[in-house]
């Protein structure tokens, strides 16, 4: 149980709970320093170090996971270690490791192979971890900003690219605005409840304390912040521009790991903190989710740039994820968690294929680049097809199991009309995914140039693509893992 009052003492046991974070911080700083002394032609060493750091962080987290599933609080109740956080963190490491492998190929090809990518990504991951484990508004905001600032810089990684700088600038301005709004909302919450600790805020809401006007006002700002970070309509404007402007591996990163953080942000704030206001935020999320589903799927059809298409598809997927959250039940949260993990895996795979198709120093960001891929590279086209069908929600792929769970949760919460809307937009969405399959399989290639990629890239992509099938057919394991995060 959280204790009240400020106890400025850190015990060894508390530090141990945060060992993965502490280790990652040290490792990121170490890599930052070491990279200075690594000559350009041996940059692969930085890559190795970063992957090793991830592996050790994962080991440390898994060691904590062995402990009983009860939530444990630390550092004056600002930090929490629970199963929900552990599972999300482990998937974040896994996906980031994949991102590293995919990115290496691209960065080499485009002469961007610099240590900054690795240190910034690791700091972003640290932000994600702090955010996931936050038990107070301050830690939460800290994690959020660490993630956001690292990501802004990452988007501008190719500093000679006008598109990239423009995207980074837009992202930074809009992101700061959203952070400001959220911070304002937090201050209002503090004003209304007198606490920054999520557990205490929750308790005081239960007691009926606080000015309800002030609380609702604060809640609106919080929801806006969450919706912005997820990229849900009407706070989605940054998503297409960032995906479009950022170099592919950065878009790949933005489209995967931060989605897990977005889920954690929503659940920590809306459930752990403001669970008592469920009736209020549910209505807002219904609107946001519904609009995201419609706009994301409809506008994606009009795109010819595949990065923008995937951006609008992200918006619609975040709408789906919100369906699970708005239900406000453990089943709904578990479904949303499954969705976030599934989506991160799927979009990582989709962007990886984009990297693979990029040749001759040009990013493959046009739909036409996929023409005849099945003839040029049958195996990778097949993997991409599975990823696309999974994104479209066709059984027996992973995406279907994610979709039906959130839809079931929505229906259990009594929003059958929203569930019907969701499946109808999924049908619309199927169209643009099918269009890519059509380009790959039914059209003739515009170039016969074979696609080359290093063996580690191909191996990870194969695992990633096959995961669509394996995690779909054997989805029971992941489903119960997600369910176990919300027991008790």
């Amino acid at each position, binding site marked *: 149980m959280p204790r009240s009052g400020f106890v400025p003492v850190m015990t060894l046991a508390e530090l141990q709970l945060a060992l993965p974070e502490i280790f990652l911080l040290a490792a990121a700083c170490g890599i930052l320093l070491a990279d200075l002394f690594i000559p350009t032609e041996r940059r692969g060493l930085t890559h190795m170090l970063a992957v090793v750091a991830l592996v050790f962080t994962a080991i440390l987290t898994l060691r904590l996971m062995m402990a009983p599933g009860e939530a444990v609080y630390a550092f004056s109740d600002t930090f929490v270690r629970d199963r929900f956080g552990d599972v999300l963190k482990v998937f974040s490491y896994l996906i980031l490791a994949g991102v590293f492998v995919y990115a290496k190929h691209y960065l080499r090809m485009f002469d961007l192979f610099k240590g900054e990518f690795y240190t910034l990504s690791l700091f972003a991951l640290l932000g994600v971890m702090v955010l996931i484990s936050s038990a107070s508004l301050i830690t939460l905001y800290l994690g959020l900003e660490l993630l956001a600032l690292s990501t802004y810089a990452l988007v501008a990684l190719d500093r000679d690219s006008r598109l990239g700088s423009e995207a980074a600038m837009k992202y930074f301005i809009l992101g700061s605005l959203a952070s400001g709004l959220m911070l304002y909302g937090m201050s209002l919450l503090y004003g209304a409840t007198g606490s920054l600790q999520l557990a205490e805020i929750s308790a005081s809401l239960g007691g009926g304390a606080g000015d309800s006007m002030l609380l609702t006002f604060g809640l609106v700002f919080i929801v806006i912040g969450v919706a912005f970070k997820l990229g849900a309509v009407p706070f989605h404007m940054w998503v297409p521009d960032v995906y479009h402007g950022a170099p592919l591996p950065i878009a790949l990163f933005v489209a995967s790991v931060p989605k897990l953080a977005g889920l954690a942000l929503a659940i920590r704030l809306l459930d752990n903190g403001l669970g008592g206001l469920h009736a209020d935020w549910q209505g807002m999320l219904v609107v946001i989710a519904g609009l995201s589903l419609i706009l994301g799927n409809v506008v994606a059809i009009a795109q010819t740039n595949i990065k923008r298409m995937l951006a609008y598809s992200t918006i619609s997927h975040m709408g789906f994820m919100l369906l699970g959250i708005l239900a406000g039940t453990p089943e709904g949260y578990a479904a949303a968690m499954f969705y976030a993990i599934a989506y991160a895996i799927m979009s990582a795979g989709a962007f990886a294929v984009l990297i693979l198709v990029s040749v001759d120093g040009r990013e493959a960001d046009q739909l036409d680049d996929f023409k005849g891929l099945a003839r040029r590279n049958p195996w990778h086209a097949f993997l991409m097809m599975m990823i696309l069908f999974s994104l479209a929600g066709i059984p027996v792929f992973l995406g279907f199991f994610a979709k*039906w769970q959130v839809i079931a949760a929505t*229906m259990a919460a009594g929003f059958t009309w929203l569930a019907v809307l969701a499946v109808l937009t999924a*049908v619309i969405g*199927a169209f643009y995914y*099918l269009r890519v399959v059509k380009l790959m399989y*039914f059209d003739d290639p515009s170039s016969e140039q074979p696609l080359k990629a290093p063996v580690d890239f191909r191996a990870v992509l194969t695992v990633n693509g096959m995961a669509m099938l394996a995690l779909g057919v054997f*989805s*029971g394991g992941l489903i119960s893992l997600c369910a176990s995060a919300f027991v008790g």
Partner: protein
Amino acid sequence: MMSEWPLLSLLIWLPILGAVFVASIGEQSPKLVRPLALGIALAVFALSLLLYAGFDATTAAMQFQEKAVWIGAFNIHYHLGIDGLSLPLILLTTLIGALIIVAGWRIEDRVHLYMASFLLLQGLMVGVFSALDALLFYVFFEAMLVPMFLIIGIWGGPNRIYATVKFFLFTFFGSVFMLIALLWLYLQSGSFAVADLHQLPIALEAQILIFLAFLIAFAVKVPMWPVHTWLPDAHVEAPTGGSVVLAAVMLKIGGYGLVRFSLPITPDAAAALDWLVIGLSLVAIAYIGFVALAQSDMKKLIAYSSISHMGFVTLGLFLAFAIARNTGDVAGAGLGISGGMVQMISHGFISGAMFLAVGVLYDRVHSREISSYGGVANTMPWFAMFAVLFFMANSGLPGTSGFVGEFMVILAAFQASIWFAFVAGTSLLLGAAYSLWLVKRVFYGEVANSAVAGLKDLSGREWVLMVILAVFVLGVGIWPFPLIEMMEASVAELVEHIMQSKLP
């Protein structure tokens, strides 16, 4: 001994794993692909005969059951089993599956993918017919779209992309409503097991909504008028094998869904809304019959004829309520359902045979237009014999399988209402008209042009296909008893079930 094998799992997974194997060796050893695919398909057919041998037709209980937990958190099981309603359809699937491989022997473009797609499709279709868990059913039902999408899109005609996307989106659109209905049922009952859903009491308003949701899904698949428009496009553009499997088996999945889900889960809604289905079926039978008459493309004509004949299936399935109301004879109410089931099997043989016949011509002349032909019987007498038989069967000639189903349904329609029987009876006229008119224009008369003059008669491979289908068309027509006996107990059980109200 035999029944202890997981026969159904074998029937599903042997072709699916075979598809993976065929696709993976295809690049290295293209010569092996065709014999290997045929071997797998024949093995599957042989296994399905074991199913037939071990089947006990005296009971309506599910047989050859297999059950394992699939997704424990949601009480979802990998649960398979068959009764008299699914067995004939599985046998049809495995037979057609083997014929398709033979029919596609001459495909050159990416033949390993072609064979793999059909094997995969076959496994999934058997899965649809044997799934006893609603979510498992849905998974098979939807997964089928993927290979079919590729088959039409890769090996289809000039307008294939429009056709295949339309096919995919129509079916997907229909089936999402079924998903919503299934989830609603799950939330009420806590189970996806079909048997549990059959017993679940549901209020009438909810039943009607669920019934309509199922109806959208299955009506698109059947297809019923007015959601049939994808079918002519898909049929025309699909390669011969695709058309055959679509007409012979995939359409039946819609009918099967109605029998397995709509009728037993929402019997009260089905009774209340039977006029809707009967009305749509009669429109399909009569109106689409006229549409078929107007076609100049052979495949399109057969496609419209399929819609019209599938109208008999849906008509037969929903006559039971009207018969019971009129005559009070609950046992006799099963006649329409039996007729619909027989019609499904018969149409599977006949439509598959007709599409193969068109394929035979198309392979030689590369035209589907009726006007490109004339006097084919002069140059291809043996082929003409078979083709005329199949088109005659399509028009319901006594002694062929086409007669049995239509006769049973019309007989049942008389008991329901003479007007139903009257409208359904127009099909005999229209079916004969468009079938025979096509036969006259394509096969008889003077040799129309040099292409027809140069035609060679059936090859050995085509002989095999034609003979096998002809045997089944005539066999079921002359002696339908084994088929009817196979499903008698299950139909009786179904009728008894749907005559009891499920209102809480």
